[in-house]
């Protein structure tokens, strides 16, 4: 069987989750690989969650928030905009491919954008292959 990546998606309640809903309402076809966890604001997404997802065997993590300036909580998404790049920089240092973590913005009316981000990410992660969490089994190298 071909490798199908598992991707954890974090969506904020106000924009991106609604955008994902709209993709459904509009019956757009979309890769099933991204499983969404709803948080109130993308600002709630701790780097720990991303790392935890990898630890638990995710092959990629997608974080979606409102577009800059549209945050329901005024500027929660700006905090995410600061955290994710630093996290990505660190993960890169740890040898984790850049494509496995993605931060993007989807508004409530952008069902199509949601789909294209999900499809694009799925394809890229699929191409990378499974994420080997080589820490646990790496007991004796």
């Amino acid at each position, binding site marked *: 069987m071909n490798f199908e990546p598992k991707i954890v998606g974090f969506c904020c309640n106000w924009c991106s989750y609604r955008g*994902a809903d709209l993709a*459904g309402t509009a019956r757009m076809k979309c890769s*099933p690989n991204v499983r969404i*966890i709803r948080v*109130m*604001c993308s600002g709630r997404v701790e780097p720990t*969650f991303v790392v935890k997802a990898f630890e638990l065997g995710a092959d990629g993590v997608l974080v979606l928030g409102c577009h800059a300036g549209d945050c329901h909580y005024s*500027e929660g998404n700006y905090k995410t905009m600061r955290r994710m790049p630093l996290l990505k920089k660190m993960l890169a240092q740890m040898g984790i491919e850049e494509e496995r973590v993605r931060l993007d913005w989807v508004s409530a009316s952008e069902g199509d954008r949601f789909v294209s981000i999900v499809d694009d990410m799925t394809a890229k992660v699929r191409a990378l292959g499974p994420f080997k969490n080589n820490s646990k089994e790496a007991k004796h190298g």
Partner: protein
Amino acid sequence: MAEKKVATKKDTEPKIGVYVCHCGSNIAGTVDVPQVVEFAKGLPAVAIAREYKFMCSDPGQSMIKDDIKQLGLNRVVVASCSPLLHEPTFRHAIQEAGLNPYLFEMANIREHCSWTTEDHGEATEKAKALVSAAVKRIYLHQPLEVREVPVNPNTLIVGGGIAGIQAALEIADAGHKVYLVEKDPSIGGHMIQFDKTFPTLDCSACILTPKMTSAGSHPNIELMTYSEVEEIAGFIGSFKAKIRKKAKFVDESKCNGCGVCIEKCPWKADSEFDLGLSQRKAIYTPFPQAVPNIPVIDKESCAYFLKGKCRACEKFCEREAIDFEQQDKIVEIDVGNIIITTGYDPFDPTPIIKYGYGKFPNVVTGLEFERICNSVGPTGGKIVLKDGSEPKSIAIIHCVGSRDENYHKYCSRVCCMYALKYSHLIKEKTKADVYQMYIDMRCFGKGYEEFYQRLSDEGVTFIRGKPAEVTDRAISEEEKGKLIVVGEDSLLGTVIRVPVDMVILCIALEARADAKNVAQLFSISQGADAFFIERHPKLDPVATMTDGVFIAGCCQGPKDIPDTVAQASAAAARVLALISKGKVELEATVAVIDEEKCSGCRICNLLCPYNAIDFIEEEEVSRINDALCKGCGTCVAACPSAAITHKHFTTEEIMAEIEGVLV
């Protein structure tokens, strides 16, 4: 240190019911529902898993309610459509069955699954993952209470200009008490300084004075002039405000506003109201129609306070209202809501040296010109030069301090129109030629373009281009003794020199000098331009990030009178809605700080968009005001000590959910 997990204390072991909806064929057409149900049955703590055609229908809901009662379920997962659609429905249902509504979780297997996935196998797998995530997460759910706080029906309005007056009247007319605080001796603000208003050319005082009077005499409005807010505590519904009533040295209860004291006072000072173009007495009301019509003594210019003698006013006051012993008073009031209408400051063009303001006596600002034009102003409404003669030509320079990276980037919104208004007043009162130097004519309001056209017809000359300088260095005979405005006429493509007698600078509106203090006092934010920031520029233009604090008028950004009035009424509407509801519901899914863990590092303090996090200096910990918290979770994600918990979205819950989706 193997065990880091904090054990979650639960009163009873979770007993979870899982309900998978077919949604007709919307879900069942793609997802193998029975398989999902079987899968759910195998998940930890799941007591029962069922399927039904339409879970949201009445029979579907009854199924859940019955199971809660009969099987003693204490947590419910419904796998159906988007929670944005039916979460309220099911929360309501389990509440009816006696469960806390927060002990509910929804798995979105329609929008996020059956509708976007074609392959049945994939869809079923994804549905399972989503159900497993919901089950893992709900295991950790805790009951939450929605709290309500009562709303004090009294309202504090800060700033007695047109915005404050309008909002005050709006609320007072609805039968609620308003405290209107104004720092000057009279309400009226900038609008009362104006002569006419554009584009209807109504007399500004004529339309404002009735409002001022009704604000002054309204039984529900307590006017606190010559007063300033010193301190604010509390939150929406119950603010406590400390207000300093500055000493007027005149007993308000005795004074009948006869004006004898003013007449008799031998001391003069520059009139603030006339921008220094005229003089007032040391005991004064700023202008004749002042509300309240009670004078104040200006300590700085009163001979008694300066030299210890005079007291002329006291001698002549028949009502014995003068009281030199008066002290500032601190008044404490309780209010439920606050509206800030502190207005703007006119931009001081002195730093723009090239325009010669301050150097050439006949270069005046727009606001000064308003006073010159005003029939009760320093010149009795005559448009005259400093030497008393009538100008033969006047140049009006737009965008002074606006649309200028060196001063204010923004457009001040009203200058084009007041410049047109000046042209009209000049044409009406003198024979002078008028030159308008503009960049773009911004006549956007109702009747504005028509006004522009009317002015064109009155023979005003429009020159497109921002002048480079105003000079008195003549290069020809005609220019001698005149002010020459030099700039490019960008439509002609040449430099143009316009010799005039008077130059009016259309100065920008800028945030008040003390805007920063006000912002801090009321926990509201300022934009880069120093004006206060509204909660959402489109959809919530009068609210601020602090619940219960609203803004209206030019303190939010430059605007004209109709827009100010509309905004003031809008703020009043928001306040009235809160008052008539009588209570506010507080968010249940808030963040809380465990003070045992907080090291007071203050990382979280600035992250909160609602200023809900206070740093308690004495205890060196941060604390969240749960009446202000909206539950976004940004602070939780940032806390390096994991001292903050986001109720209903705890780290453990989300971790469990991550584990769930990755089955």
